[in-house]
């Protein structure tokens, strides 16, 4: 016997060998096992004496025919088979199917011609379905063909569409016949006298006993022992377990005494088999794969149920001579040891080892099983490659059963290599490949690379895994499935990258490239013919991604909420307690982005890639992998130099609004397409999500002004899209046209313009102006349409020298050299107004281009006098102290444009962009000093301004509507501006308040200064650059004494001299000695009473050189009081006073009439210096002749 049967169970010792599988059961007691096999080398029958279960007892042939000729041929083959196994065969059957040819192809029919009677799987195709073919017709057809007359076998004829309902009964009957033959043989044998039996021999023993004395006691015993053992075999097959056990036990005794080791082993094995049958009646082959269609339905299952129920009835304890589970293995071990003494019994030994291992498996003795299996390897057999492979496969199967998956994988791998070994005449790469694939679990390999990468712990043995994968690639390649080879190589590179040396990495990458050139790798699962799915593998390590960041849109394109949500920061504006710190806010990167992307806008993800290979790598077709909303990714191609981190930006456009998930990117490199998902890469979030909002318009902004060269870092600097710079002289204004073009596809429906600067709002509004209505009328702005916005720019500045504050004025910067205050100066019979009048009038009248020096000198002439208008130092014309702070200032502002439209507007978003404006404000003129002087009329006063031209050009200054003058660059001059006094109507409110305090005075200041600012209009014109501008006196500061001049007197004067009303500029003429009656009427124009008024009439002579003489006792005499006290003057109330004066000598006299009141009307403490003084202006002039 040279063909090992690795599939054997020890139970097979009890089986009747039949060439086609079926089952039988007889009576209540006997359990008959039938083993159907598909192939049986006739040599195996030779061992039939040694172990009866090796004999072939029955034959069932299956065949299909469609002609008489074919039927004859089948019958002939069947008969020849019968002859072949004639030594052992008990009975045979033929099951024949008539092919009606309705659905069978001719090739199939011809197949049945050379069909081996031993049944094949595909010959068992018995259709289950009842067809609609007419039965009658078929029966006719069956009758049509008749087997040849010399065909003695019982045959069953079916049509190929027949349900074969009676087949089972036929087979049962067949099994019965087998059984009865066996039973009769058993009985026959058992009736033989044990002393007489001939010696049973194993095939190889035949030579050994030639010429030996068979009558010796030893040999007699040997014969008896062997026969006893043989009877045991037969009993076992005939279902008599207890009898067989007894026979085997006896045989063991007998054979042991004669040292017949081989048969002793067989007896032990029989004993074990019988015991195992008692103990584990249900050991079954796991048959399921090749069973098909109708045959299995009834019989095999029924056999199971029968055997179970009937065997349960046998009380296991009652069975005498039955071995204990431990003993079974012990005996089997002995049996194997005995077998191993005979070199020719190698196959028996191997088979016994397998059987023992299977019992160990049943007993859950894995280690025992492992030693039995280990023993198999040591048995030296001359086997064909195919048988060796089978041996390894069976070993691996059993190792798997005992959970030795590594060992199983090892055997599978050995089997795989045998398939393609050089000794193998028919290499089979596909089998090799399949076995390699099956050995994956033992190597802790998984076909799915994600599983491999997910387990952080490296569990398998990398070097072995790499070896296996490389072999797998070769197998796949030799198999001719290059897609598979590419896939496995990709897998190897993906999962084993870190365990590969640099040279391996390079070599395997190059191999992959050459493999992929035959079949490009793509990230789709591959399905093998046997249904195994090979999941996609991706090259995530070639190139390595070391950076992956989603980019926010550019600042001016970022969407912003139109209505900023008010942040609830609690009752405190600031709290040092960081509540967030209590919540253990983790600084881990968030997968949800805190910025937004916009539909239809180009969005960016920046990557940093590293090529780990020592050669240049071209990565093409790189795209982003997304899920969620529709996203259009733009493919990129990049060539990566070796080992240098290369930044790369992947772009794409979301086509919808909603949540977008970025899962990774796809690559195409080394001929393999990969989907590199972040989930499978270390140090990245599994995915990034970002909110995409509906589409917003985009706008392009241009200005008519040149761009600024630089701009300082200013808040929200990032929004700036363009800039404009401009230089303006203070007071100059200009226009800037800003052109807005809608460059997007969404109309702009909303546009908000605002200016941002660090200036205070009032000033800012002065500098930047635009028409809101104008721009709003141009909305909506359709795509590709333009709108223009005019921005008015005005260089607003403080034209007043700020160095001179109120305190300076109060402390008497002007009057330091004089004991008298400004008030006193003006109170005195100053000639300044007239002097101002005359020279200016004259000079201006005479020569338009009056030189400032001239003007100044005229002032200087008064310096010696009382007037303190020109204090030394700061007035010296040559060394005009230009205010040192009057340098060029730069104002920066941002014109912020918030715009939105379309669906984005509905979602409440807008975009913001801004124009950066740089305004260089060049000083033009400055009022370095000012004062007020009473004018000739009571309704006006003179504002005297020292104006400095801060430019280097000649400036023409228009200070009233009709008067103008030229000022040289960097020089100054003094101009008098007649201004209407501040009417009382503007001040009523103040006087209304009884409890006026210091604040009121400040208010008064303000009202008056605004009054001046609104009336004085200084316009300048630079002659060389033709620029014009306007200066304001906004914010002019006035001393209290000035205020009294600036505002209208609350007292209305009515002065008559000799009954004639005194008019300004008209001196009264009289002769010396004339009595002049001066009648003074005072009425209160305020709406409240004035108290503690003191009216004074004073006569003086003005020498016109700044000196006034009040010592006039020798020159005039007054009759009547010159000082009258008016305790109260009711509103609208009037008071009058009359006094007479007589001038003794001719001359020019003046009368100063004034009313004074303490500042605080409510108090009685009179303080003249701080109180109010209201004068009758101008002083009355009397020319006495």
């Amino acid at each position: 016997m040279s063909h090992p049967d690795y599939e054997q169970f020890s139970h097979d010792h009890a089986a009747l060998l039949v060439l086609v599988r079926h089952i039988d059961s007889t009576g209540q007691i006997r359990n008959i096992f039938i083993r159907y096999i598909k192939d049986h080398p006739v040599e195996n029958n030779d061992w039939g004496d040694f172990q009866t279960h090796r004999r072939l007892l029955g034959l069932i042939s299956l065949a299909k025919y469609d002609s008489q000729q074919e039927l004859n041929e089948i019958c002939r083959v069947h008969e020849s088979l019968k002859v072949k196994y004639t030594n052992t065969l008990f009975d045979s059957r033929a099951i024949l199917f008539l092919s009606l040819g309705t659905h069978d192809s001719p090739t199939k029919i011809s197949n049945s011609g050379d069909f081996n009677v031993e049944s094949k799987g595909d010959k068992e195709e018995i259709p289950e379905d009842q067809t609609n073919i007419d039965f009658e017709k078929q029966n006719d057809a069956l009758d049509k063909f008749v087997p040849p007359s010399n065909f003695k076998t019982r045959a069953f004829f079916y049509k190929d569409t027949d349900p074969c309902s009676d087949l089972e009964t036929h087979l049962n009957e067949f099994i019965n016949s087998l059984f009865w033959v066996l039973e009769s043989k058993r009985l026959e044998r058992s009736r033989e006298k044990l002393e007489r039996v001939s010696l049973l021999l194993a095939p190889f023993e035949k030579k050994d006993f030639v010429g030996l004395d068979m009558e010796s006691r030893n040999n007699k015993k040997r014969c008896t022992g062997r026969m006893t053992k043989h009877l045991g075999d037969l009993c076992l097959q005939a279902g008599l377990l207890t009898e067989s056990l007894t026979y085997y036990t006896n045989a063991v005794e007998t054979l042991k005494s004669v040292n017949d080791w081989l048969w002793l082993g067989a007896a032990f094995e029989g004993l074990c088999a019988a015991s195992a049958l008692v103990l584990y009646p249900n050991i079954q082959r796991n048959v399921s794969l090749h069973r098909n269609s109708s045959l299995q339905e009834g019989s095999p299952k029924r056999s199971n149920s029968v055997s179970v129920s009937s065997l349960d009835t046998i009380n296991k304890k009652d069975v005498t001579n039955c071995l204990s589970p431990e003993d079974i293995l012990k005996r089997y071990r002995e049996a194997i040891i005995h077998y191993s003494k005979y070199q020719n019994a190698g196959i028996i030994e191997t088979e016994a080892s397998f059987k023992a291992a299977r019992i160990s498996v049943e007993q859950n003795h894995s280690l025992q099983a492992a030693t039995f299996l280990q023993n198999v390897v040591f048995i030296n057999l001359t086997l064909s490659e195919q048988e060796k492979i089978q041996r390894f496969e069976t070993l691996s199967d059993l190792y798997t059963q005992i959970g030795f998956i590594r060992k199983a994988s090892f055997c599978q791998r050995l089997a795989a290599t045998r398939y393609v070994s050089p000794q193998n005449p028919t290499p089979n790469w596909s089998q090799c490949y399949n076995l390699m694939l099956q050995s994956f679990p033992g190597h802790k390999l998984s076909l799915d690379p994600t599983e491999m990468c997910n387990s952080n712990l490296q569990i398998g043995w990398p070097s072995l895994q790499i070896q296996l994968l490389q072999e797998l690639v070769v197998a796949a390649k030799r198999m001719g499935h290059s897609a598979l080879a590419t896939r496995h190589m990709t897998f190897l590179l993906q999962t084993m990258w870190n365990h590969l040396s640099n040279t391996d990495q390079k070599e395997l990458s190059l191999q992959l490239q050459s493999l992929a050139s035959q079949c490009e790798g793509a990230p789709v699962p591959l399905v093998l013919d046997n249904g195994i799915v090979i999941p996609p593998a991706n090259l995530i390590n070639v190139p390595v991604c070391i950076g992956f960041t989603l980019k926010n849109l550019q600042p001016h394109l970022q969407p912003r909420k139109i209505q900023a949500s008010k942040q609830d920061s609690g009752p405190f504006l600031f709290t040092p307690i960081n509540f967030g710190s209590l919540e253990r806010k983790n600084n881990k990167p968030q997968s949800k982005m805190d910025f937004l992307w916009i539909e239809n806008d180009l969005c960016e993800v920046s990557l940093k890639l590293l090529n780990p290979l020592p050669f240049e790598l071209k990565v093409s077709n790189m795209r982003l992998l997304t899920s969620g909303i529709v996203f259009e990714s733009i493919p990129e191609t990049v060539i990566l130099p070796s080992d240098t981190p290369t930044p790369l930006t992947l772009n794409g456009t979301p086509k919808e609004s909603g949540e977008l998930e970025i899962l990774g990117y796809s690559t195409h490199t080394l001929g393999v397409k990969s989907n590199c998902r972040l989930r499978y890469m270390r140090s990245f979030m599994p995915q990034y999500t970002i909110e995409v909002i509906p589409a917003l318009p985009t706008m392009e902004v241009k200005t008519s002004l040149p761009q600024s060269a630089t701009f300082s870092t200013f808040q929200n600097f990032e929004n700036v899209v363009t800039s404009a710079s401009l230089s303006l002289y203070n007071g100059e204004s200009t226009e800037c046209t800003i052109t807005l073009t809608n460059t997007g596809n969404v109309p702009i429906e909303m546009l908000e313009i605002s200016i941002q600067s660090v200036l205070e709002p009032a000033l800012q509004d002065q500098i930047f102006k635009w028409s809101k209505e104008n721009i709003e009328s141009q909305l909506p702005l359709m795509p590709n349409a333009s709108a223009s916005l005019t921005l008015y720019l005005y260089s607003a500045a403080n034209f007043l020298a700020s160095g001179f504050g109120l305190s300076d004025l109060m402390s008497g910067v002007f009057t330091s050299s004089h004991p008298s205050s400004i008030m006193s100066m003006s109170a005195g019979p100053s000639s300044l107004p007239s002097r101002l009048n005359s020279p200016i009038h004259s000079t201006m009248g005479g020569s338009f281009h009056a030189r400032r020096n001239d003007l100044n000198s005229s002032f200087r002439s008064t310096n010696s006098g009382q007037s303190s208008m020109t204090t030394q130092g700061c007035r010296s014309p040559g060394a005009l102290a230009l205010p040192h702070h009057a340098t060029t200032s730069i104002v920066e502002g941002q014109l912020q444009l918030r715009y939105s439209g379309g669906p984005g507007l509905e979602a409440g978003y807008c975009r913001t962009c801004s124009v950066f404006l740089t305004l260089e404000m060049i000083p033009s003129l400055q009022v370095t000093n000012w004062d007020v002087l009473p004018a000739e009329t009571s309704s006006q006063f003179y504002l005297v301004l020292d104006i400095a031209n801060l430019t280097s050009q000649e400036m023409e200054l228009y200070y009233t509507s009709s008067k103008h003058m030229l000022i040289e660059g960097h020089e100054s001059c003094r101009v008098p501006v007649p201004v209407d006094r501040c009417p009382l109507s503007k001040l009523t409110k103040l006087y209304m308040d009884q409890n006026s305090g210091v604040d009121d005075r400040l208010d008064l200041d303000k009202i008056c200064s605004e009054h001046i600012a609104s009336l004085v209009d200084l316009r300048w014109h630079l002659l060389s650059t033709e620029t014009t501008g306007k200066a304001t006196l906004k914010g002019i500061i006035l001393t209290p004494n000035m205020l009294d001049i600036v505002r209208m007197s609350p007292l209305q004067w009515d002065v008559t001299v000799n009954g004639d009303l005194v008019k300004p500029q008209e001196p009264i003429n009289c002769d010396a000695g004339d009595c002049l009656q001066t009648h003074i009427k005072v009425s209160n124009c305020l709406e409240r009473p004035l108290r503690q008024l003191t009216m004074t009439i004073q006569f003086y002579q003005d020498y016109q050189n700044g000196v006034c003489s009040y010592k006039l006792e020798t020159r005039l005499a007054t009759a009547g009081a010159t000082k009258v006290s008016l305790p109260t003057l009711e509103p609208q109330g009037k008071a009058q006073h009359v006094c007479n004066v007589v001038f003794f000598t001719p001359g020019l006299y003046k009368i100063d009439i004034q009313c004074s009141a303490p500042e605080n009307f409510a108090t009685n403490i009179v303080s003249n210096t701080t109180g109010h003084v209201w004068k009758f202006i101008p002083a009355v002039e009397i020319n006495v002749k």
Partner: protein
Amino acid sequence: MAVCVSIIGKDNSPKYFSCLNPYDELNLQYKVLSSLDVVEEKLNSGSKSGSDIRELYLGMLYSLETHKIYGYVTNTKIKFVIIVDSTNTAIRDNEIRSMFRKLHSIYADYVCNPFHIPGDQITSKPFDERVKNIMTGNA
């Protein structure tokens, strides 16, 4: 004395592998890997029967034509496997035991290194040296 020494972590991943003949490494790795089945089986059955847990030596795992494979498991389930040439019949069980004990002690020394991260592979020249000494019987 020994042909190969291997240290395997508790998750059955290789931590250290050393053999006298580097060309044989892959082959021996296969042998060690398949011997792990037996080790696991022994551990499973051992724990069931409640045998003396201080006995770390597992004895011979299995023998092949050319090699004999011995196993040893620490209480933390770190496995040591030593492969011995079958032809060397002079070697006694006691010698194998003492090899394992030495190996265990140098392993313990090694993992005491504060810079060693548990679970990492062992890559250390001095350790290599000492293992080689044990293998050749010079230690």
